[in-house]
């Protein structure tokens, strides 16, 4: 399959931006939480699920998507949001609970909605799949070639919504793609203790659809597989499942004691970091220069810095605004 260099550059920039974003978020989240960690304290309170290490899934898929395509994401949504082009300022402001946020501070980190780029996410495992199904249904009803992608974790593939949605999507040949980020754990529970099959692509057989498996967090492979799945969806060939083997460098949430895994595990994983691998690929296989890379990185860093500045400088909503927006 021919790979567009522009696409790879976009992927690199996006992955880099995500990494940068999550690193900064880890810092922001830690503020006000020391010496004693208190989940409710600091400028970014509440649960915080970061996606550091999981960039390939988001970037490798979203590079094939346009604005009109829908993405639904789970409780760990920043990488998908960034890759889908969610307004970074307003997203960050939302996570800081500010009035300028996507949801005026009402949603927070797990509840980011940007209808301009058709992105949404939510805190209930598996629940975003039916929403993507509905977007796919609407796309088909309207005769468009738009697709809908539901990102989920491997833990979510054991939730009933997964099964119900894929059966319906297959039955009606809808342009739905379910991307399963197998980061090996659902909180503390390893995949082997939650899932009866080694990988979820085999579950495609239960719906008579296509199943793909991407090994070892490989960005290029994710790119290729996603391209095929998106093309199939756009051309009326129905839904697919993509499972990507990926890695969660951080805890399930920030503050996770991680008693369930070896401290070395992540050290080893970081040695084969997908951002470094993609960087090397660009440099060595695609004739991209260090300067180009540096430019992309700077651009990404700048955007991220800018978004955090925007968030920090924004005002909190007025308390009484809590009563608004229940009904339109």
């Amino acid at each position, binding site marked *: 399959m021919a790979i567009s260099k522009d696409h790879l550059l976009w992927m690199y920039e996006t992955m880099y931006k995500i990494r940068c974003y999550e690193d900064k978020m880890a810092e922001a989240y830690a503020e006000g939480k020391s010496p004693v960690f208190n989940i409710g304290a600091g400028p970014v309170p509440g649960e915080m699920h970061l996606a550091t290490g999981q960039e390939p899934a988001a970037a490798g898929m979203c590079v094939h998507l346009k604005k009109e395509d829908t993405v*639904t994401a789970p409780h760990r949504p920043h990488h998908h949001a960034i890759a889908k082009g969610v307004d970074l300022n307003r997203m960050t402001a939302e996570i800081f609970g500010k009035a300028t946020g996507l*949801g005026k*501070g009402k949603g927070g980190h797990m509840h980011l909605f940007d*209808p301009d780029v058709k992105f949404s996410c939510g805190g209930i495992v598996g629940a975003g799949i039916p929403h993507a199904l*509905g977007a796919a249904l609407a796309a088909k009803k309207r005769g468009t070639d738009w697709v809908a992608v539901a990102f989920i974790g491997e833990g979510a593939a054991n939730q009933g919504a997964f099964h119900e949605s894929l*059966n319906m999507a297959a039955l009606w040949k809808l342009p739905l793609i379910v991307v399963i980020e197998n980061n090996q754990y659902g909180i503390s529970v390893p995949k082997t203790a939650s899932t009866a099959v080694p990988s979820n692509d085999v579950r495609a057989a239960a719906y008579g659809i296509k199943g793909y498996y991407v090994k070892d967090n490989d960005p290029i492979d994710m790119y290729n597989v996603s391209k095929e799945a998106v093309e199939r969806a756009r051309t009326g060939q129905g839904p697919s499942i993509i499972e990507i083997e990926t890695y969660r460098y951080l805890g399930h949430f920030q503050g996770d004691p991680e008693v369930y895994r070896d401290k070395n595990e992540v050290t080893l994983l970081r040695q084969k970091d997908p951002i470094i691998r993609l960087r090397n690929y660009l440099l060595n296989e695609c004739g991209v220069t260090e300067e180009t890379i540096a430019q992309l990185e700077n651009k990404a860093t700048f955007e991220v810095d800018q978004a955090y500045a925007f968030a920090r400088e924004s005002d909190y909503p007025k308390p009484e605004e809590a009563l608004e927006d229940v009904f339109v």
Partner: protein
Amino acid sequence: MQQTKQRLLTGNKALAEAIRLEMERDPNVFVMGEDVGVYGGIFGATEGLFQKFGPERVIDTPISETAFIGAAIGAAAEGMRPIVELMFVDFFGVCMDQIYNHMAKIPYMSGGRVKLPMVLMTAVGGGYSDAAQHSQTLYATFAHLPGMKVVAPSTPYDLKGMMISAIRDDNPVVFMFHKTLQGLGWMDQLDASIGHVPEEAYTVPLGKANIVREGTDITIVGIQMTVHQALEAAKRLEQQGIQAEVIDLRSLVPLDKETIIQSVKKTHRLLVVDEDYLSYGMTAEIAAIAAEHCLYDLEAPVKRIAVPDVPIPYSRPLEQFVLPNADKIFREAIQLVNE
């Protein structure tokens, strides 16, 4: 007698007509659910629609409530206006997450940027021995959770007018229709299940209670089936010289507190009747409103009639024992007025 001018429809035909009119008016409206197609809905709410609009707009689904109600949310977020049927309200347990955590909360969590103009319609009610998992009304289960309008009309006229309002509303609306008030040929035949329904599209506001009978001695608040029971009781009370005011709540959310408060201020007595479970239910909310807002007007303790916190039993004598009825209302009202 203007009988000739009356256009009589059953509840189910009134509902189906409302949906038909809105489907003709707006191509974004479509219907999805189990057996809503050829079958026309188990309780007839989609009668004739499949024949008129075909399988693209009247869609039979697998028995996958989480997926298809969730899909309605996804489609509504894209600007469609889905009507989904949950066949019996009793089945809410397999899909409540989509309903209460997503449908009801996404508009709020998005700061109002995502609108979900959808209707979740569902059949409620017992009285025909369908037992514990097919006879519930669960009014309060939905009304307690913020973010959805919850309505429960009791006449063919209101069924049509409120369904049209629900479809045109930009908020998610849970639309409950009572099986026995659908006027179906295979259930108990009630006069109340047939009524005058104008041919054209019209709206009845969501959130306005209806004083269906004026009176001065006692306020009886009911909803759906219990409104008709209250009206029957009111007739018999009249023979005893008692003028009961009967309020048809029609809508649980938004709740028309003002109409209730004004009525209690006038009658000084309140009896609330519900086909849902007693505790933590609609009767509690109405009683609480009275205790908050018209305590000094009350001349007797508030009384409540509802299912006494037991699952709905199957056997006829058992079921009849737990359901509200005109007799119970009559007896309680008499007692209350004589307090």
